[in-house]
């Protein structure tokens, strides 16, 4: 989906979906700590960072045009908004890739609900990898852990120094 969309913001939202999918597959193979850190780090960190990057580096002229269009729209009544919404929805439906994606999703969900009789397996002593990972991180891989911390600090300071805008102090 990121391949087919031209809008950068839409790319970011499709990326959110794929990150969630990756986190779900981590859960399926039993790497629960990695799934949680995937959600926290990628969706909470990287995606927000990417959105900030898009906002900071988007062209100002097109943004102004869009803002003008928005403010013109706001002058009209609520009815206009409803019509606009339906137009947008129609446009969304008519695009072939959206039809493909939602058709696939619907077909898969119908198949799953037909095939599966959902039954709850009694969980016997659910094992988490959190304890194991914590112990191993601070004993065997302690050097790498410290190096990762130092790397993050260096990156933080470098980015701050690099993007510093000179502020004239009176």
């Amino acid at each position: 989906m990121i391949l087919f969309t031209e809008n950068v913001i839409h790319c970011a939202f499709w990326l959110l979906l794929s990150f969630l999918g990756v986190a779900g597959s981590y859960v399926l193979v039993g790497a629960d700590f990695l799934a949680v850190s995937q959600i926290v780090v990628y969706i909470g960190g990287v995606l927000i960072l990417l959105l900030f990057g898009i906002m900071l580096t988007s062209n100002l002229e097109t943004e102004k045009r869009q803002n003008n269009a928005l403010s013109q729209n706001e002058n009209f009544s609520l009815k206009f908004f409803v019509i606009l919404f339906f137009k947008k929805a129609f446009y969304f439906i008519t695009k072939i890739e959206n039809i493909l994606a939602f058709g696939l999703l619907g077909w898969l969900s119908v198949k799953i609900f037909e095939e599966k009789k959902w039954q709850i397996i009694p969980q016997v002593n659910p094992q988490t990898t959190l304890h194991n990972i914590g112990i191993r991180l601070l004993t065997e891989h302690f050097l790498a852990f410290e190096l990762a911390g130092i790397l993050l600090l260096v990156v933080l300071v470098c980015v701050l120094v690099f993007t510093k805008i000179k502020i004239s102090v009176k």
Partner: protein
Amino acid sequence: MLLLSAGLFFIGLAIFLTKKHPVVILMGIELMLNATNINLVAFSQQDPRLQGQLFALFVMIVAVAESAVALAIMVKIFYNQNTVKL
């Protein structure tokens, strides 16, 4: 699992090769790193020492650092040249 990671890797590679906007290229790189992470986790599924998962954790940290630096460079280029299109 391996098929999923291979598919994700090639989608990331295609994004990386075809897109014009550098932020989207960065997204492609993130997707490729995610694919490698899935691969590592899939191979460490039976490993009691969980080395693959630990390595995936470090890959995640490095990916975050890399994306932060790349975005900083992009913001700086934007201030200088008023566009970031490649």
